[in-house]
């Protein structure tokens, strides 16, 4: 069961990872899509939805503009979903606390993804030379293939990130689970609430809308009063 779950996750990591830069950009790579779909394939869609909500906003403010590489929230979402389901079954704890622990272990490894993606882009630096060489020799078919070879480096970087997150989680979670289970479960709901709010705060801090905080507070206040009083 576990190997199958890990493979399913790897498949999602590959497909969604490629969507990030290499192909399509239809945004199946966003956590709000990737996590629920992964978890759905593993039979626990609600865990995926929870992870999607918590991860989606955290790095949404980091735009993939030009040569800037944001941290890999896609693989964090997929890796955390796989970990939460696998570890939940393994330790018999399909709870919000387990989901949170897995997510908090996976989250810093998003930075590893940033590093791998950066290496992939560097590695593609040899392709222009190869394409030009093929053109000089009049081998147009080969020139096109060299372009498509770039997909390999991005696929590899996605899978490596996913591997790092899952391996890190599989090693760390069983050990820290007895230690953190109690403290985290005491404030599990507060943590679940805090993560999306931090993400929104990050967006407010970096979006170039004048008076973003005023607009936000007004919308928040109005919606909250409506929900509370109606």
């Amino acid at each position: 069961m576990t190997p199958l779950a890990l493979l399913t996750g790897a498949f999602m990591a590959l497909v969604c990872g490629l969507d990030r830069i290499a192909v399509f950009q239809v945004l199946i790579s966003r956590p709000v899509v990737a996590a629920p779909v992964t978890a759905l394939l593993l039979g626990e869609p609600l865990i995926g939805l929870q992870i999607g909500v918590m991860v989606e906003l955290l790095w949404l403010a980091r735009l993939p503009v030009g040569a800037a590489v944001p941290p890999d929230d896609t693989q964090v979402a997929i890796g955390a979903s796989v970990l939460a389901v696998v570890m939940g079954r393994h330790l018999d704890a399909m709870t919000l606390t387990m989901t949170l622990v897995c997510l908090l272990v996976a989250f810093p490894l998003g930075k590893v993804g940033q590093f791998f993606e950066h290496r992939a882009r560097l590695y593609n630096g040899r392709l222009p030379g190869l394409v030009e060489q093929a053109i000089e020799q009049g081998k147009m078919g080969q020139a096109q293939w060299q372009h498509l070879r770039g997909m390999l480096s991005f696929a590899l970087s996605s899978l490596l990130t996913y591997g790092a997150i899952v391996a890190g989680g599989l090693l760390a979670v069983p050990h820290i689970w007895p230690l953190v289970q109690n403290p985290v479960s005491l404030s599990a709901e507060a943590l679940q609430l805090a993560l999306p709010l931090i993400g929104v705060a990050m967006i407010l801090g970096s979006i170039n809308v004048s008076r973003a905080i005023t607009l936000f507070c007004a919308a928040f206040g109005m919606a909250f009063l409506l929900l509370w009083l109606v």
Partner: protein
Amino acid sequence: MNLVLIRVDNRLIHGQVLESWVPFVQANCIVVANDAIASNPLKQLMMKASVPSRMRVEIYTVDEAVRLLQATDLDAYRVLLLFGTTADALRAYRRGLAYEQLNLGNLHADAGKARFSCTVFLDARDLDDLEMLEQAGVVITARCIPADTERPWRKLIPNVKEME
């Protein structure tokens, strides 16, 4: 004159500048100092179309831009100044535009340029320009977007790997 960021970026106005730097430094005016764009009305028009209308955009040749910044017209604005090349940055400095910090953004690969960081490719002449600016007391750092770590340009030199 209130210069909040001076940046060398061969792409001039693009996503990194508008989406990351403008909100970070709270700029409300962009001055582009580039001779080629200043002499081409169509390019100017395209460039201005990519900026929201609440931001002021001024596109001038390097010399004119220096004169504009030394005058009092833009005193009320927080100005983000963009150069296309290191040579332009040096020229502006020599024309009397005193600035203390210079940000290196994108300087793209070309024949004869070596890679100093992911997005900064320099040749010998660029190095000379930066050298002279540094001797004049300008602090030069490479940083693509605000979320990246700021690195002094001298630290980049051991990174030199391939020649394009």
